[in-house]
């Protein structure tokens, strides 16, 4: 296949994938395993991070990652020429919604709530250089609390928060993934923020 030769020439370039974009999707839709393999490789980090940020559990994230790709492969014929990543994320989020009750039940059963002490491991320090060490520690502590509490939000609020704050997606893109109007995304994020603010105020200022 000329495509693979073309793709191999693209490897190493910044737009390696983009340069072969159209061909690879066509092949994937037709059921080409090599094309599927390239797509999994290309999107593995972004998708796995989304899976992990939705579940904050390695095993669940791996399950969700596999389920997403299996569903994408099964439904490849339904893929039309929209952007591939939102389509893939949409499948992932829908699968997460399907699994959500199981995750909640499992966490309850195993008493594995994602606590802020665990969340600290995932907080990336981005504070400005003017912060003192104490301030940095305080910020990390609060952000870990936020991450732990975002994980406990009900699914309709949690998913937009994850997509907006962790995945840095735009409101319009989130609306596309969730299949709801942009206003609904904003409203859910505001509701989540109010809820988090209440929780954190009670934890921080008792």
């Amino acid at each position: 296949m000329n495509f693979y030769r073309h793709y191999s020439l693209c490897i190493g370039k910044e737009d390696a994938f983009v340069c072969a974009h159209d061909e690879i999707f066509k092949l994937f839709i037709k059921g080409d395993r090599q094309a599927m393999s390239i797509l999994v490789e290309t999107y593995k980090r972004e998708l796995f991070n989304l899976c992990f940020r939705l579940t904050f559990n390695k095993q669940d994230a791996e399950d969700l990652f596999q389920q997403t790709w299996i569903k994408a492969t099964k439904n490849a014929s339904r893929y039309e020429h929209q952007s591939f990543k939102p389509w893939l994320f949409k499948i992932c989020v829908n699968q997460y919604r399907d699994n959500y009750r199981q995750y909640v039940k499992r966490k309850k059963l195993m008493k594995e709530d994602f606590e802020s002490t665990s969340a600290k491991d995932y907080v990336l320090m981005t504070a400005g250089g003017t912060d003192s060490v104490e301030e940095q520690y305080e910020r990390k502590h609060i952000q870990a609390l936020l991450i732990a509490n975002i994980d406990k939000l009900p699914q309709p609020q949690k998913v937009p928060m994850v997509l907006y704050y962790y995945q840095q997606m735009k409101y319009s893109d989130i609306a596309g993934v969730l299949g709801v109007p942009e206003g609904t995304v904003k409203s859910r994020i505001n509701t989540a923020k109010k809820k988090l603010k209440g929780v954190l105020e009670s934890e921080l200022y008792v």
Partner: protein
Amino acid sequence: MFDIDAYLDTIAVKEVSPSDTLINKTVEQCGEVMKTKEKERKTAKQIKKVVMIAVPAAALLLIGIFIGSQLNVLQGTAVNAASACFTVDINPSVCVNVDEESIVTSLVGQNKDAADLVEKLDCIGEPAADAIYEIVDEAKALGYINEENKYVLIGCFGISDEDATIGSLQEKLENSFGDMIDLLTVSGTLEEKTQADTLDVSAGLLKLSRMAQGVDIDNEDKVEDVVGELKNTYSAPTLSVNETKDGLVLKWTKLDFVAMGYSGEVTYEIAAADTAADVKNLTASVLKRYTFQTGDTQNTSYKLTPDSGILSGTKKYYGIYVKYANVAKLVGNVVSAVMPEVAAPKASASPAVSPSPTQTPQPEQEPTVTGRVSGDAVVIKWRQDTSESLSGYKIVASKTNPNPRYPDDGYIKYITNKDTTSIKLYEGVGGLKAGKTYYFSVTYLYENGSTVAANAVQLKVPSKAKTPSETAAPPAEPTTAPTQAAPPSGDYASTSISGSMDGNTARLSWGQIDDARFDGYKVVCSFSNSSPSYPGDGYVKWITDASKTSCSVDMTKISGYAPGAVCYFAITALYDGHSVKKTGNTVSLTMPAAPAAPESQPYESTGISGSMDGSTARLSWGQINDERFDGYKVVCSFSNSSPSYPNDGYERWITDASKTSCSLDMTGISGYTPGATCYFAITVLYDGHDVKKTGNTISLPMP
């Protein structure tokens, strides 16, 4: 005040990386999904077992080739290691060789045109339906298919799933070419294909030619040449339909089998459907079947009445299917007619078979009828027949027929007492109207169903006296219910119906109407209208005998019948020459439920076994054979001694039911440490993952 935005806006979560094991597993599982999809794509849904051949000649001839059991047996013995094939005959004749999954392995042009055509195509590896489509498309582009040459003959030789391929192909061709082509299909064995190869002719054309009883062909013959011969060989009778007072009569022409060169068994099927297309496509309901040998007398007519299950007022299309000894099935022209309202009374219990002359018992004396007007009644007398085979006397009246007889003219009274030889008939009885002149007669009915009609007398029915005492029952007919005549003025009464189901038969009864203006009861039923009435909902019985206040209806013959369905019944009473209609209450009856479906098959789990081979776990389990099966989740856990999916995740997702083993590199499994014990199980998923069944657990020590 806590500024949440200040923290959220700067929040960042560390990135995590998926393991290579996860990526490899994912790619492997998606590969399996692709494999399964490919298999599913090849398995098109099943279509009807009769493969149709449409031969749209002037007479709208349609032919179907039966894949009879005999042929299937031959297929079974003849199939060998050689590949099966489809033949495509237009004028180019192409042989499409396929593997056991109907994937094209080679294309062979069987004449020069075909050889040229095949060179332009690259169909190897494609499903057969796609390849055949491309051949037809190319043939059309090259001008082989045009207004004069529209036939495309597809032959299936040794094909195990020909219905699926042909079904898929028909859809494709219809969508793309519509009326531009006429598709014919034939089916045969690999043995027949081999014979055709020996003769250097197309197997499809050879098969078709054999239907035309040995038309000689060569490899340049066109399909229409053979079809022409075929049409000359087999034919269907020409059908016509006539309306009678009892219903409809279908008549057809006799076939000259000798001229046709055919001898053997022939079956005529009288078929009816709501559309002409259903009749033409051989999918109409068969009302009557006649099977006979070519030397036998041919039936040439069939009488249809509302009792045949076709409601009055219903338009149907009729055809006659002719089957030639499991070789061909044809339908000739299609006719349509509306089932008329049957004016003459008919008793459902009475025999309607006309006698054959040799079977008719002769009355001991010539049946004779006399009559006179006596007061406000007509008195009919007849000669007694004391023969033992006599069932009774049918009293018949007609305004127009000077020689009325049962069953052609219905009847107004049925007298089963053989000693009764006279009857007094008042206006209103059996719909008799005062001041009207009728021909009265008596038909003698015998046990074998044969009838002998007596002469007729013409009498004018007098008006009936209004006093109740004068409305007593006719003395000679004690079994007849007395009629309570109402004055011929005032309100028209409706009547109340009640009923019950007796198996699939509805037993209905209603109150008698005694009114001189009464014409009859229309028994109405509907599965869709909860307040049915005549004429809007048609009727299933028309009863003109006011004293007959019950009837039975075989519900399986009623349109819309389904086990468990609710049917609504009512009686519409007709008055004054049908000008007044009064419908009474409605009664609903539930049809008997279908036999309970067998209990659904339980969902099975599967047993796992395994061993360690270094740091690799070799696992195997029992195969699941269940249509509802989705896949096996291979589950393992170092912490849970009873692992299952989804709680413990999974290591492999296998959707191929026949794949019952796998190997796991345990060093890539989360929690692996040398010497640890790992627990394994298989969770079987069914019904779109809705059902999960986990079998036994095994534990294996890590090296």
